[in-house]
C-alpha cells in the first residue's frame, strides 16, 4: 500500500515538474527585475520619456536585430547605457544572423509575440501588419524627428505616408576590393563607371594569376544587389526595374535581359573566379568573407559593412577600397539607389509601445548613443549625429561617407523601388539554384533567365 501511495506521489511530482518547466520564463524575469531595482538605487538620472508613465513602473521591452559580431557588441553596449539612464526600463535582447532572424520573426508573427522593438529592411511589406506606425508618437513628440530631414523620414514611410519606423541609416551597395591584389595581378582598379565586362575580366585575370577567387559571393543578397540592380541599368534612367514601382507586377518584360548576368556568373563560377555553392556556404557573415580571409580580391558589400572589414584588413596591413557596382554601359544608368539599410519598428504586439518608441527615438537621435554605434548600421539620418560622426570618422568610415556621397551624385530616377515583395525568398533561392544548374550544364542561361522571370511573375 505504501508503494502505491509513493507511486502516486511520484507521478504527481512528475506532472508538477513538467508544469514548472513551462513557467521557467517568468521566474527568470523576476530575478532580472530584481537586478534592475538594485541598479535603480544608484542612478538618479532623469528620463524625459518616462514623464507620461509612472516613474517607478517597471517596463520590460524585448528587442532583436540581425548583423555581425561588431553590431551585436555595440548594440548591447547601447542597450545597457539606456537601462542606466532609464532604471525602470529593462530591455531583453536577442540577436541573430540574417536568415535566422527572419525564421524566428515568422514564428513570432504567427504567435502574436513579435519583439517590442524589431529591425526590418526592404522586406518589410511581408510584416507590415505587425508594424505599429509611429505617426501619433511623432505628433505627440515622443519620437523626436526635429533633427531628421523629411527626405530621410520618407525612406521609411509606406506609399500612404505611414511612418513605419526610423531608419537606422543610409546605405547603398558597392564592391569592396583589395588594390594590392589588383596590382599584383596587373589588373586596372575599378573606376566610377566600370562595366560588368571590366568586372568579369578583372576577376578572371586575378583568378588566373593569383589562384584566388576574383570576387567573393553575396549569397542571398545577390538577388537584389546583383540581378535586380542589373535590370535597372538597361535603357534610360528609370525605364526598367525588376519589380514595378507599386509592387503589382514585373518592371521589365523580356526575360532575356537577365541572360547576360546569369551567363557571366556561371562562367565565373566555372572558371573558379566566383565561389561555387559549397564555398558560398563557408561565408557566414561579412567578417569571414573571402575578401577578408584573403581568398578573394573583391566582394559585394552594403556600404555600412565596409568600415568593419576595412578595420579587420587594416590590422593585417591591407588597405581596402570601395567601388560602385559595375554598369552595363559606362555611360548608362548606374541602377544604384540610396536606401534605408534597415529601420527599427515598434510591434503591434507590444504591451509598452510608447516606451519602445521612446527607445527608438533615443537610439537614432542621441549623440552619446551614436558615438558608440558609429554608423555601423548605415549613415545616420539625424543631421547633428551625422555631422558629429563624419567629423571624427575613422579612415574606414571616411571611405564609406565619401562613397555614399559619390553614389548620391549619380543620376537617379525620381521614384525607385527597393522593397522586396512577399514571396521573394523563394524566387531568390530558385534563382541561385538555376545559376548552379547552368554551371553544371543542366540548363542554359536563357532557360535560367526564363525560369527566374516566371518564378518572379508568379508572385503576383
Amino acid at each position, binding site marked *: *500500500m505504501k508503494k502505491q501511495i509513493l507511486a502516486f506521489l*511520484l*507521478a504527481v511530482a512528475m506532472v508538477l515538474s513538467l508544469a514548472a518547466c513551462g513557467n521557467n520564463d517568468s521566474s527568470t524575469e523576476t530575478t532580472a527585475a530584481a537586478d534592475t531595482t538594485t541598479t535603480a538605487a544608484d542612478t538618479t538620472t532623469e528620463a524625459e520619456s518616462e514623464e507620461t508613465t509612472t516613474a517607478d513602473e517597471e517596463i520590460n521591452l524585448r528587442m532583436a536585430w540581425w548583423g555581425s559580431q561588431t553590431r551585436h557588441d555595440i548594440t548591447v553596449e547601447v542597450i545597457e547605457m539606456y537601462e542606466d539612464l532609464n532604471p525602470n526600463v529593462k530591455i531583453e535582447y536577442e540577436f541573430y544572423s540574417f536568415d535566422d532572424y527572419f*525564421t524566428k520573426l*515568422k514564428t513570432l508573427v504567427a504567435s502574436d509575440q513579435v519583439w517590442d522593438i524589431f529591425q526590418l529592411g526592404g522586406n518589410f511589406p511581408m510584416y507590415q501588419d505587425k508594424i505599429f506606425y509611429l505617426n501619433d508618437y511623432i505628433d505627440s513628440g515622443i519620437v523626436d524627428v526635429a533633427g531628421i530631414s523629411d527626405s530621410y523620414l520618407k525612406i521609411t514611410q509606406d506609399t500612404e505616408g505611414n511612418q513605419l519606423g526610423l531608419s537606422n541609416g543610409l546605405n547603398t551597395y558597392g564592391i569592396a576590393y583589395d588594390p594590392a591584389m589588383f596590382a599584383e595581378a596587373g589588373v586596372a582598379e575599378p573606376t566610377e563607371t566600370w562595366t560588368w565586362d571590366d568586372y568579369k575580366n578583372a576577376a578572371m585575370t586575378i583568378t588566373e594569376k593569383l589562384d584566388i577567387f576574383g570576387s567573393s559571393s553575396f549569397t542571398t543578397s545577390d538577388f537584389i544587389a546583383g540581378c535586380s540592380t542589373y535590370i535597372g541599368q538597361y535603357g534610360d534612367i528609370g525605364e526598367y526595374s525588376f519589380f514595378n514601382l507599386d509592387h503589382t507586377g514585373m518592371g521589365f518584360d523580356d526575360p532575356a535581359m537577365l541572360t547576360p548576368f546569369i551567363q557571366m556568373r556561371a562562367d565565373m563560377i566555372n572558371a573558379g573566379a566566383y565561389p*561555387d555553392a*559549397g564555398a558560398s556556404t563557408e561565408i557566414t557573415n561579412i567578417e569571414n568573407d573571402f575578401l577578408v580571409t584573403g581568398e578573394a580580391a573583391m566582394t559585394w558589400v552594403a556600404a555600412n559593412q565596409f568600415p568593419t572589414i576595412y578595420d579587420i584588413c587594416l590590422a593585417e596591413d591591407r588597405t581596402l577600397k570601395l567601388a560602385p557596382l559595375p554598369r552595363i554601359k559606362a555611360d548608362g544608368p548606374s541602377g544604384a539607389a540610396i536606401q534605408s539599410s534597415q529601420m527599427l519598428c515598434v510591434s503591434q504586439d507590444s504591451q509598452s509601445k510608447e516606451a519602445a518608441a521612446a527607445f527608438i527615438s533615443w537610439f537614432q537621435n542621441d549623440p552619446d548613443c551614436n558615438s558608440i554605434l558609429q554608423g555601423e548600421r548605415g549613415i545616420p539620418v539625424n543631421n547633428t549625429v551625422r555631422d558629429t560622426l563624419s567629423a571624427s570618422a575613422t579612415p574606414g568610415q571616411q571611405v564609406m561617407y565619401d562613397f555614399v556621397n559619390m553614389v548620391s551624385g549619380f543620376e537617379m530616377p525620381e521614384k525607385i523601388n527597393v522593397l522586396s515583395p*512577399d514571396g521573394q525568398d523563394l524566387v531568390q*533561392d530558385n534563382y541561385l*539554384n538555376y545559376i548552379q544548374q547552368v554551371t553544371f550544364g543542366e540548363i542554359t542561361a536563357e532557360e535560367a533567365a526564363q525560369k527566374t522571370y516566371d518564378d518572379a511573375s508568379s508572385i503576383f
Partner: protein
Amino acid sequence: MKGAAIKNGRMRSLIYNDNTVGHIFALPFIFGFISFSLIPIVFSFYYSFTDYSLGTKTAEWIGFVNFVNIFKDEVFFKSLLKTLQYVVVSVPLKLSFSLMIAFLLTRKSKLVTLYRSLYYIPSLVGGSVAVALVWKQLFARRGLFNTVLDNIGLPTINWFGDQNLAIYPLILLSVWQFGSSMIIFAAGLKEIPTTYYEAAKIDGAKGYQSFFRITLPCLSPIIQYNLVMQTIAAFMSFTQALIITGGGPNNSTMLYGLYVYNQAFKYNNMGYASAMSWIMLIVMSLVTMVIFKSSKLWVFSESGD
C-alpha cells in the same frame, strides 16, 4: 456509515488498481503526446488543404491545390529522390557498421562496457548543431580532410561544391551515429545461446560460417527492428542538411525535411509544407510496409512455421 465505507473501498480499489497507477505514470507522456503530437498532426492535416501562411495567418480552404502544385514542383521531386538515396545508402551502411562493432564488443573483456559507452557518444552528440558545424569544417575546401589529402600529394576534393559528392559527408555523419543500433544489436547477440556455436564448432564450422548461419538468422528480428527504426529516422534527417550545406549545390542535399522547413518557415507556405509532410507520411508508411511484408522472406523466428 456503511455507504461511505463502500464508497471509500471503491475509491481505494480505484486508486490502487494497476491500470490507474499506470495511467497516472503515463500522464506526462499522454499530455506531451496530445499537445505536441496529436493536436499538431490533426491541424497539419487540415492546413494541408488550405493556403495557411505564418505571415498572413489566414487559412483559406483551397482543396487539393497544394497537392497538385507539389506534383508540379521540380524541387519536390529532386528532394524526394535525394532523400531516398540518402536512406538507401546510409541505413544499410549504418546497420552493418553497428553490427560489426557490436560483434567485436561481445568478447569477454573488462573494457567492453567502457568501449560501448565510448562508441555510443557519437549518437548522443551526433544530431547536434555543434557536430554538424564540425563536420562542415572537416569537409570544407581547406578543412582537415583536404589538408591531409594535400599533404600526401593527392588532389583535394571539393565536397560541397560537387553535386554528386555533397550528400556523402551527410551520409557519413549519419553512419557515425551508430550507437543506438549497436546497443540493440549487442543485446541481441547476448541472447543467442552459446550452445549453437559450440555445436557448430564440433561439426567443424568456420568462423564466418557460424556468423552467417547462426548469428545473422538468430539476429534477424533485431535487424528488422533496427532497419525500420533507422529508416524512419533517416527519412526525417534535417539538422545536417540545414547546417552543413543548406541544401545545395543544385539542391543535391535538399533532404525532404529541409525542404518542408524551407516552405513552412522561409517561403511562408505552411499549407504547402503540411501537404508535403502528409506525402512523406505516405511514402514512409509504404517503405515500412514493404520491410514488414518482405520480412517473411528473411526474418527467422524460432516459433515460426
